[in-house]
């Protein structure tokens, strides 16, 4: 086993050969191809940054390349005030390259803060805490149970190797979000999935369940932020698939650095890193990942993924360009930390950047209870039209769903629709707050006698 070239403190081992990574389904070619061709005199070109070492990836040597990727992560964290000393972060780990690197980089930041704390006389600034979450989806996939168990054992090993600041690993079966204390989660989840006939809708619904599961772990275990390893490549695919599903209005909500729609805010520190870069970091550091838990896409998502892969093969900056286009769309008010005093932990030179950030509650959006997307104008108009006459909670729920969830997730016929609603986990149904909804739209409601008290 060769030693890791970097000082990551995780006692990692270098794996043999190139690895396929699973989070964006892009294979790593022979590593020597990733570096640029030799100079005209036949000698290997030196690194464009340090000028000393041989090029490893693009125009950079291995050390500079790793520094470059870590630099992007660090910049995202700093510029968006993602991590404060008092935070308790939950890192979502799927087994893939991107979340492995997210875990690694967060671990390195924590270790550095820990070292400073140990060395400091006053030890006034605490060190942020880190936990790891894994959602066990075997019930909803075709993977043999023994293989998943084996993969989980490897994940436990990965997390326990992140010394010296130990991190707790939380494993939650995805079906547990469907059950209320009883052991019927699996049958409830399967019953729920059976009512969704659209393949893409079913896959997207599982994604929403996964997010809720992560939120559940964070809430129950006292974490105050959720870190996802979403990278440029995954986000580029999401941008195209959201466009294709008619979600253009809500799209900017999903890929900003910060998302405080959820009870536990979500941060994306690897947003500016390409999947291939993250795979390279895993290879360089010998970071173990889990191919067994690969989740190949289906339906529309699979088509979009192969389309973007083809585009990226033709032009290596395509994924970045897609993200750059979407970055020009206006984010929502919940795409920033805006609580008073939140930014006090920052150095003053950075604090001033956030001083004009206001909590703009007046522009509160109505969110779809299934996917959490802000409703666009026509969905809102439909909502206003329908809500006047409803009595049942199921009707309120359905009227608040966005057109995309209406099409691809909600069953069309009454019997499966009632079954779907009955089996739906509470975190979904709780999102429809009838009174709060009325308050937001009451100025658009017209009654016979104009007495709005009748509606409460």
């Amino acid at each position, binding site marked *: 086993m060769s030693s890791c070239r970097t000082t990551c403190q995780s006692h990692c081992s270098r794996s043999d050969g190139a690895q396929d990574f699973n989070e964006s389904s892009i294979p790593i070619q022979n590593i020597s191809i990733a570096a640029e061709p030799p100079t005209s005199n036949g000698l290997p070109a030196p690194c464009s940054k340090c000028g000393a070492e041989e090029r490893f990836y693009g125009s950079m040597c291995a050390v500079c390349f790793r520094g470059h990727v870590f630099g992007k992560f660090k910049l995202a964290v700093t510029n968006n005030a993602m991590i404060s000393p008092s935070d308790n972060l939950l890192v979502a780990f799927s087994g893939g390259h991107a979340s492995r690197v997210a875990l690694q980089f967060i671990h390195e930041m924590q270790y550095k803060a820990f070292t400073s704390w140990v060395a400091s006389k006053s030890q006034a600034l605490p060190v942020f805490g880190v936990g790891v979450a894994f959602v066990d989806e075997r019930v909803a996939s075709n993977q043999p149970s023994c293989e998943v168990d084996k993969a989980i054992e490897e994940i436990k090993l990965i997390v326990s190797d992140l010394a010296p600041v130990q991190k707790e690993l939380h494993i939650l079966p995805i079906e547990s979000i469907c059950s209320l204390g009883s052991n019927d989660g699996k049958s409830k989840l399967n019953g729920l999935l059976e009512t969704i*006939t*659209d*393949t*893409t809708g*079913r896959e997207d619904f599982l994604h929403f369940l996964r997010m809720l599961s992560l939120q559940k772990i964070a809430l129950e275990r006292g974490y105050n932020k959720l870190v996802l390893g979403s990278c440029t490549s995954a986000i580029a695919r999401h*941008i*195209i698939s*959201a*466009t*294709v*599903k*008619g*979600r*253009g*209005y809500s*799209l*900017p909500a999903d890929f900003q650095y910060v998302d405080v729609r959820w009870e536990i805010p979500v941060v994306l520190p690897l947003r500016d890193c390409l999947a291939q870069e993250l795979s390279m970091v895993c290879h360089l550091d010998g970071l173990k990942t889990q191919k067994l838990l690969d989740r190949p896409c289906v*339906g*529309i998502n699979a*088509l979009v993924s192969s*389309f973007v892969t*083809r*585009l990226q093969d*033709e*032009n*290596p*900056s*395509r994924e970045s*360009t*897609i993200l*750059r*286009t*979407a970055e*020009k*769309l*206006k984010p929502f008010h919940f795409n920033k930390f805006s609580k008073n005093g939140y930014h006090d932990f920052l150095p003053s030179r950075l604090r001033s950047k956030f001083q004009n950030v206001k909590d703009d509650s007046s522009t509160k959006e109505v969110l779809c209870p299934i996917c959490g997307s802000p409703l*666009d*104008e026509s969905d809102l108009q439909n909502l206003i039209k329908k809500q006047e006459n409803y009595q049942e909670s199921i009707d309120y729920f359905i009227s608040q769903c966005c*057109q*995309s969830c209406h*099409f691809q997730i909600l069953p069309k016929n009454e019997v499966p629709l009632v079954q779907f609603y009955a089996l739906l986990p509470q975190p979904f149904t709780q999102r429809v707050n009838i009174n709060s909804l009325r308050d937001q739209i009451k100025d658009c409601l017209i009654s016979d006698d104009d007495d709005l008290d009748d509606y409460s």
Partner: protein
Amino acid sequence: MEGSDGKKSRRGAGRVCSICNERKAALKRPKTLEQICRECFYTVFEDEIHRTIVDNHLFKPGERVAIGASGGKDSTVLAYVLSELNRRHNYGLDLFLLSVDEGITGYRDDSLETVKRNEIQYGLPLKIVSYKTLYGWTMDEIVKAIGLKNNCTFCGVFRRQALDRGAAVMKAEKLVTGHNADDMAETILLNILRGDIARLSRCTFITTGEDGPIPRCKPFKYTYEKEIVMYAYFKKLDYFSTECIYSPNAYRGFAREFIKDLERIRPRAILDIIRSGENFRISSSTKMPEQGTCERCGYISSQKLCKACVLLDGLNRGLPKQGIGRSRGRNNAKDEEHNKDSSFQSKPCGALDV
């Protein structure tokens, strides 16, 4: 079809039209997969276009309207349907056909014959403008000079201006083109892929150029290409159905193939892309190009010289790359550097703006 619970058609049982419930279903509607008879298909197809025209206030009574006519299925169906709806619903429009002769032997000369037949079949006067007369170059000559990599850029830019000039000569107040939902969806995707937020914000407008001399509109904005083909087929309309002989290298084909695959899985995805495009939250502070006029020809332009003059200047001086790609110092210059050696250049097809 993607995992839906669509019923299988019963062989030999003869389904009834799901709209009129009387006549036998003759086709599955591409947009909605409803099984309907021919007559009901004509009705829903024409009514949807009529609704688009009315809801978006595309025309005013008495307007003189040029129909961009290439002889292809979109413009032939457009001419047929528009003259039919004009009669049926009394739009009060003065319609005529406007064609552009790019000078592509074996393609355009054949399709122009189709337009000449349409002139007689639909009783609409025809005006033809040619690249040779306007610019001194045919597409055949341009391709000979520059090859097949950026020819669509030249053609699209020149055609846009040619249509405007032809419409102006004929004193038209409006220009309609046969751009359909598939074209719109492709353009939205291409502008996302290219990082062109300015075009992305404009490309879903059903009417464009309202601040210019000749506004142009797209009554087929929500009409599926497959339904246009189906309409032309059942109505036995006369159109020219061959692809431009210079088109195989067009970058747009990439997005077109993706959309065809999408449509197979989920037909409504085409309209969903348009919906997304219409609803993108594009900040008002996003820098948009300033509209001015070309110093040489007076055509609308955001630069000193319009794109057509820049390209023409390059052609006449033997500089075929002039005006192709983006100049250094602008946004996304790094993106273009990557494209240098790529076989698929991310150069805009000029038709994106049409």
